[in-house]
């Protein structure tokens, strides 16, 4: 009877949510987000690029030294990823007072100089000096390194165009992903799970608002146990969330398949195996949704107005962030005490466990964790229903009355 009533309520909620124009907006919301993110990101990149394109580091030295500096810059720049590379190098030959020339560079229009390296004096024994524009210490450090490279090259009598001696290289094919790759895969899965629950589970906070507003709660409470009502409401919204995930999961899979080829997923090599890892991801998404959703449902059911429900959105977001933080810390230190705490604490357990799947091949901890999490879903729903019965329906004697045998007689007298 319990299950049948829960299914009836879930079915109603699912249909009432999905067959509405609002659901289409909900379903396509990530698309809007992507469009805005792309447009905004492109704009921001363009602004950043235009700023960075004008940036320069300048070296004022003899032609011979400039050649050595450029050669050193070429070697070093090859090792630095483009996004964090220093500004473009510009070399000039000294004219008159080197310091005055170096200072004048900062005032030139059309370029944004971050640091200047120059010879403080003339002759071979003149020392290098750096003027650091705007505390851009990275540029200054980089120029210092180039000066040192040039000095060593000159001492070693290496000509600027010479290739460094080649060291033989043998490619090594790993049989399995490295531990850091797996840790990254775990972090990635944890983040996806967190993002999905952040977007979807928070909706459960207002799920009983409709029934309280239109008084249907009395019908439901009379016909079914409140636990069945809570399970039904949660299941109905979970169905909506699954539909959302299936839709976007399908689209993303197709996009990956089309853009990167079917072998793309093979790059991810979790310890537990890719198919098991993906299955666990789905299961832990369900558990994370149900665990957090049941907490939010129980809390939201106590609210007496939409304003109160809106007020709850902040603590709910904090709670989710806290669970994410705990699980992230656990994922960063697999096997640690912190990781164990995150795996055992019911509301962070799904996130921590999915990360564990990437680094640990054992299956039994997952089976135990899923059972543990299911138990907590049941406990949370039972507590939520009891709280609702007591707090909203005012059912049963108050605690004061229950534990104070003199209360009744005192009141009657």
């Amino acid at each position, binding site marked *: *009877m319990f299950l049948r009533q829960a299914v*009836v309520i879930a079915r109603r909620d699912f249909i*009432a949510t999905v067959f509405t124009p609002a659901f289409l907006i909900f379903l396509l919301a990530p698309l809007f987000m992507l469009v805005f993110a792309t447009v905004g990101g492109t704009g921001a990149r363009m602004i950043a690029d235009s700023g960075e394109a004008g940036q320069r580091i300048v070296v004022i030295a003899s032609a011979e030294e400039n050649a050595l500096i450029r050669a050193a810059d070429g070697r070093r720049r090859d090792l630095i990823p483009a996004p964090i590379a220093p500004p473009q190098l510009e070399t000039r030959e000294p004219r008159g007072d080197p310091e005055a020339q170096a200072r004048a560079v900062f005032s030139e229009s059309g370029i944004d100089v971050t640091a200047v390296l120059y010879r403080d004096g003339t002759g071979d024994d003149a020392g290098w000096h750096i003027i650091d524009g705007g505390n851009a210490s990275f540029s200054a450090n980089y120029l210092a390194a180039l000066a040192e490279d040039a000095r060593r090259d000159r001492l070693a009598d290496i000509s600027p165009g010479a290739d460094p001696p080649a060291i033989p290289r043998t490619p090594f094919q790993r049989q399995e992903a490295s531990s850091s790759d797996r840790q990254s895969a775990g972090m990635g899965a944890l983040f996806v799970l967190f993002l999905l629950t952040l977007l979807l589970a928070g909706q459960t906070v207002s799920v009983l608002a409709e029934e309280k507003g239109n*008084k249907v709660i*009395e*019908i439901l*409470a*009379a016909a079914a146990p409140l636990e069945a009502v809570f399970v039904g409401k949660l299941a109905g919204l979970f169905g909506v969330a699954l539909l959302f995930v299936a839709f976007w999961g399908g689209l993303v899979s197709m996009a990956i398949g089309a853009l990167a080829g079917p072998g793309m997923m093979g790059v991810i090599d979790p310890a537990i195996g890719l198919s098991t890892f993906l299955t666990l991801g789905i299961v832990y998404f369900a558990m994370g949704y149900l665990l957090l959703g049941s907490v939010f449902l129980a809390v939201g059911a106590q609210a007496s107005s939409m304003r109160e429900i809106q007020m709850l959105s902040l603590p709910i977001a904090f709670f989710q962030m806290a669970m994410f933080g705990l699980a992230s810390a656990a994922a960063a230190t697999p096997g640690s005490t912190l990781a164990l705490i995150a795996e055992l604490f019911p509301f962070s357990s799904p996130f921590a466990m999915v990360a564990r799947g990437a680094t640990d091949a054992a299956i039994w901890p997952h089976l135990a964790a899923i059972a543990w999490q299911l138990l907590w879903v049941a406990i949370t729903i039972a507590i939520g229903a009891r709280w609702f019965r007591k707090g909203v329906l005012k059912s049963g*004697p108050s605690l004061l*009355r229950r534990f104070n045998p003199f209360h009744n007689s005192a009141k009657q007298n």
Partner: protein
Amino acid sequence: MSATGLVKYFGDKRAVDGVDIAVPAGSIYGILGPNGAGKTTTLRMLLGIIEPDEGSRMLLGSPRPRTQSDRVGYLPEERGLYPSMKAREAIAFMGALRGLDWRTGRERADEMLEAVGLGGSAHEKIKKLSKGMAQLVQLQGSIVHRPDLIVLDEPFSGLDPVNQERLEKLVLAERDRGATILFSTHIMAHAERLCDRLAIIAGGKRRYEGSVEEARATLPMEAHYTPREDSSALLPLLPPEAVRDGKDYRFPVPEDGMESLLQTLLDSGHGIAGLSLERPGLHDAFVALVGAETVERMESGEELEA
């Protein structure tokens, strides 16, 4: 359905104060009382929606009312339907909650809506229906699974006379089907017309329990006397409770009967132009049982102070 010593507090207020009720199977039973008397709370405790602070209940043979929910139909005082649901879906949904399969629920919904002249509204959304029509839909939703016990909380409030008549017919039809019907009301006319038995509740306490006839019988019959010759000498001859009402005098029939009084009236020359003996209505019985002030508040719909 029965209950013994039901007590419910809301904070420090003793909203229901030791109510006993016994509803015979197959009867129409009314709980009569002013707003705030504790009727709704009593019904909710009887159905197991809320637990009493004290007392015990028996619903359809079970001390745990929730286990019998499939055999019960309930129309709450605060009407509630999903506004975006179609009328037949709303009825089928309420039936499904009580164990009826959706298909049968929809078929019965069509029949029931047709029977009350709402067949054309079966596919209308609830928000498009009038308040009275929506209320009928909700009532049908609460009986679509053909329950053994139907509990209606203030079912007539908010209905126009046409829909009140429809509702009365529905209640009688359900009783004829074999269902037991328990309803609360503060309108005495409905209780008087429909109820086999009733309980009067005021201030959280049960003031009366019995049949309508028994309630009326708690008061003596009333005589309406019209003299042939009226004079100032007449009133002292009548019982002290006699009051003048136009050309008539009204007074309770004396405990020793009317014979000696009639003889006195004839001997005094006032004669008898008209005489009728009437059983007091439920209203008068209610006044006698709970007091005129409470009845006045009940009829005005005013909330009763605890």
